[in-house]
């Protein structure tokens, strides 16, 4: 029996559980001996002219070695916008000289001998600011009254698509339109950003930093610093979570490397949580208008999604998120007409980047909301409306009006499995009873279906590298260009090699994240790792077996075609002659047994599923509590169910968090209101039930494993299901929509508004 598909526990865990992982701030590398500690001086105002920065007092503070401002960085090239289609005027500075554009914008950096001295000294830097009006929210930005970058003449960072034609909804009996907020949230990996840098006598800089892909981070740092890429050695230590926010490098990492050069000492930087919540990339942040039209029998004829994406102060990955939203606009549905349009606006807030799902959860939330509202309008069960409009089961690729090509799917089956596992009919019956009794605690049932894109070409193709070497002692080493930070690649990649070679998982070491040893790699993001990086390891193992067969054939004087792998002994044997064999280790003892390979996936894959969520809402207070979550998440073939389930769990929780609790808030002056974890309501164990997972596996033809991505699916499916469940719990009181997060006050106010509207209506008809 193959090891694939079995619940292998993680080989990483014993060290993590006894001495702890080694994150960037934990490093004790001797090259970092005597490292200075960097502390950023950041703007406390959202938008202002910088009049002066006085560092004199700070330079006198205990332990201060240097204080740097922009004036000290004249030999650094200016930063450029991250995408060529963004106008060159939308550019950030390494350290601000003339304008600060969000609370947290960097103004100066203090280097001190000891960690504790940094904050004391940073307080001594005197920054004189002339406050400008702040732009908060996309609606304000779109007015173009206050411009973040006056030279650009607009706050629009990018625009995609055209308005819908005037006759787009012609022929629809019913058209429903709703403004929907997909609010800004904070990724909050438990490990904040951290980096260390040291220059060698050979003129090369070694940078350790927490990130989701060493090779990409290295490329960015080299480019930003104007260095030949060969001069940058980037090492990724253990990483305490990423969720999209650690894709690539941040300018801070490059700046710290540069300051190590200027100061002639190694430099370390670990941000505080407050700094993290105000300056690390946020996610989501879309204001959407959904419009859906169709006939009263439940058939949708036309659907439109128009999005204003908050880009934050400086263009980052957020600029391209709406293109993914647009691509996935129709979701699982076979709508005849689909329209999508978006623009991205600069605001005086933290920049937006990728966060678990990155553009796709926003599309799913919008279309699921639209379908619910359409169903409510025509008085049909929302599940029935879904069933009528779902794309039927397909084995050949399915093309959508927005240009996506779905690889394989059976959305109706996923929905049916989820409904059955949840006991949907019984839930509706229980809901009816409670409504009839007028219970304080009402039941809400939310159903979502979703499809998303994983392993997409992010500009660097759909390939990944792997190197596999078997050693004479019977162990093996895998080098991968993916970048695990919780996903368990060390275990799964070892399983993939073991599956071909028979070398036990415990004897296979998986290495990643050192750009000197692994120069090429795509990192871990967009749910790509298994289907590309894992497939590359599989391919390396297959190729290694072929090489080994040739060499074994010579040694055993046999035909290579007659050799088979004996998984029990990690050796090659002659078919039908069990005694005649040679192990991979023996072959490695003769000559290095090593394969380097690149696997290129045929195309992106489209995992899908259906979620059913049950909430109980205290209608007096408006507080909704999630009591059940049933999910079907089809990510094709599963290699390690234990780890795949873990990915689903984490994803589900983050979806619940967005739907119910979490939101990054600013006041109208652009001051962050959620800059500590006491204020930002990071979801905790008490706010979640245990999850009920249902298996389904529709393999993809896009890679030999049949695997699709699983990292983001849980979030994409659960977010709309939870929102829908909350709304459903008060639907009988007249509520049609509540924006996320569906806080108790929002729900209570929605009920109050619906009740007073219905009273007014009753009054007028009486």
């Amino acid at each position: 029996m193959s090891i694939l598909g079995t619940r292998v526990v993680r080989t990483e865990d014993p060290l993590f559980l006894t001495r702890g992982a080694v994150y960037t701030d934990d490093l004790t590398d001797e090259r970092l001996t005597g490292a200075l500690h960097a502390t950023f001086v950041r703007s406390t105002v959202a938008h202002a002219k910088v009049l002066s920065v006085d560092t004199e007092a700070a330079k006198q503070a205990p332990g201060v070695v240097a204080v740097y401002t922009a004036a000290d960085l004249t030999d650094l090239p200016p930063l450029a916008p991250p995408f060529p289609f963004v106008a060159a005027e939308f550019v950030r500075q390494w350290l601000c000289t003339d304008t600060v554009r969000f609370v947290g914008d960097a103004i100066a950096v203090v280097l001190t001998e000891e960690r504790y001295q940094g904050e004391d000294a940073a307080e001594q830097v005197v920054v004189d600011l002339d406050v400008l009006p702040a732009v908060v929210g996309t609606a304000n930005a779109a007015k173009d009254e206050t411009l973040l970058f006056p030279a650009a003449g607009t706050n629009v960072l990018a625009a995609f698509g055209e308005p819908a034609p005037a006759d787009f909804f012609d022929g629809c009996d019913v058209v429903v339109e709703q403004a929907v907020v997909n609010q800004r949230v904070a990724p909050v990996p438990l490990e904040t950003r951290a980096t260390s840098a040291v220059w060698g006598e050979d003129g090369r800089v070694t940078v350790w930093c927490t990130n989701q892909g060493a090779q990409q981070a290295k490329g960015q740092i080299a480019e930003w610093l104007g260095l030949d890429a060969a001069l940058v050695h980037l090492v990724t230590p253990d990483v305490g979570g990423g969720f999209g926010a650690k894709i690539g490098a941040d300018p801070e990492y490059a700046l710290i490397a540069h300051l190590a050069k200027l100061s002639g000492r190694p430099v370390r930087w670990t941000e505080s949580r407050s700094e993290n919540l105000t300056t690390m990339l946020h996610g989501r942040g879309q204001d959407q208008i959904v419009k859906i039209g169709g006939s009263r029998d439940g058939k949708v004829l036309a659907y439109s999604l128009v999005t204003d994406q908050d880009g934050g102060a400086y263009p980052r990955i957020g600029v391209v998120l709406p293109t993914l939203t647009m691509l996935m606009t129709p979701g699982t549905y076979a709508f005849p007409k689909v329209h999508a349009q978006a623009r991205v606006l600069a605001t005086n807030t933290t920049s937006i980047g990728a966060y678990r799902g990155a553009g796709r959860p926003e599309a799913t939330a919008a279309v699921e909301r639209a379908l619910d509202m359409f169903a409510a309008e025509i008085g049909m069960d929302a599940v029935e409306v879904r069933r009528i409009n779902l794309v039927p089961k397909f084995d050949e690729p399915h093309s959508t009006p927005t240009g996506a090509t779905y690889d394989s799917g059976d959305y109706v089956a996923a929905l049916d499995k989820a409904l059955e596992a949840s006991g949907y009919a019984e839930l509706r019956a229980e809901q009816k009873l409670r409504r009839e009794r007028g219970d304080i605690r009402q039941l809400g049932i939310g159903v979502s279906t979703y499809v998303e894109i994983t392993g997409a070409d992010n500009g660097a193709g759909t390939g990944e590298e792997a190197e596999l070497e078997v050693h004479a002692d019977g162990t093996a080493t895998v080098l991968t260009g993916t970048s695990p930070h919780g996903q368990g690649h060390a275990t799964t990649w070892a399983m993939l090699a073991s599956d071909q070679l028979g070398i036990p998982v415990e004897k296979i070491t998986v290495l990643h994240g050192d750009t000197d040893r692994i120069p090429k790699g795509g990192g871990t993001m967009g749910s790509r790792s298994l289907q590309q990086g894992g497939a590359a390891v599989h391919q390396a193992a297959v190729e290694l077996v072929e090489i080994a067969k040739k060499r074994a054939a010579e040694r055993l004087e046999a035909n290579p075609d007659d050799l088979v792998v004996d998984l029990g002994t990690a050796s090659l044997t002659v078919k039908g002659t069990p005694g005649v064999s040679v192990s991979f280790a023996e072959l490695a003892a003769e000559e290095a047994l090593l394969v380097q390979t690149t696997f290129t996936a045929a195309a992106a894959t489209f995992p899908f599923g259906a979620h059913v969520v049950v909430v109980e809402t205290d209608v007096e207070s408006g507080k909704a509590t999630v009591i059940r979550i049933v999910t079907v998440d089809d990510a094709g073939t599963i290699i390690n169910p234990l780890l795949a389930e873990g990915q689903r769990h984490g994803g589900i929780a983050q979806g619940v968090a967005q739907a119910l609790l979490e939101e990054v808030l600013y006041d109208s002056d652009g001051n962050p209101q959620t800059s500590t974890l006491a204020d930002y309501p990071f979801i905790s164990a008490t706010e979640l039930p245990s999850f009920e997972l249902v298996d389904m596996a529709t393999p993809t033809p896009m890679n030999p494993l049949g695997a699709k991505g699983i990292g983001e699916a849980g979030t994409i499916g659960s977010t709309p299901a939870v929102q829908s469940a909350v709304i459903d719990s008060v639907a009988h009181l007249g509520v049609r929509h509540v924006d996320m997060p569906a806080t108790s006050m929002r729900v209570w106010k929605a009920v109050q508004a619906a009740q007073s509207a219905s009273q007014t209506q009753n009054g007028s008809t009486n």
Partner: protein
Amino acid sequence: MQVSMTVNGQQRTDEVEPRMLLAHHLRDTLGLTATNIGCDSTSCGACTVIVDGLSVKSCTVLALQVEGSQVTTLEGLAGEDGELHPVQAAFQSEHGLQCGFCTSGMVMASVGVLAANPDPTDREVREGLEGNLCRCTGYHNIVRAVLKAAEAGPVAGQVPQSQEVSA
């Protein structure tokens, strides 16, 4: 100022600044970096250690405040022969950790949960871990792990004997 404490069974006396937080003392002075710092506001629990038999958030305790105390960190939880503590073993078998950053605090808090309640329900585990945040697992497998560890009996709620306070 000077501070003395017993950390993972070893007597330690060190010179510290009065404002030195126990978390930084463990990490920077003693090199015990399994204890992580994930927030500024006593919210995340990543820095949880056991002081005199009770779980505490070491980011909100001065090193000087644990003068004379017994401190156990993740590094001191396994047996001297390297045998995993029942909570550690259960976190592995139930896949209760992913990125690992919350894990040290989560494991120590779980020992505390089981010390207070050796046979908890799913809900009681969740309430016991309300001060510990995890972004990766959705808590599902952490809860499973604590319930699994409870099957080992009272030992799951204890730190190694050699480190216990002598009465």
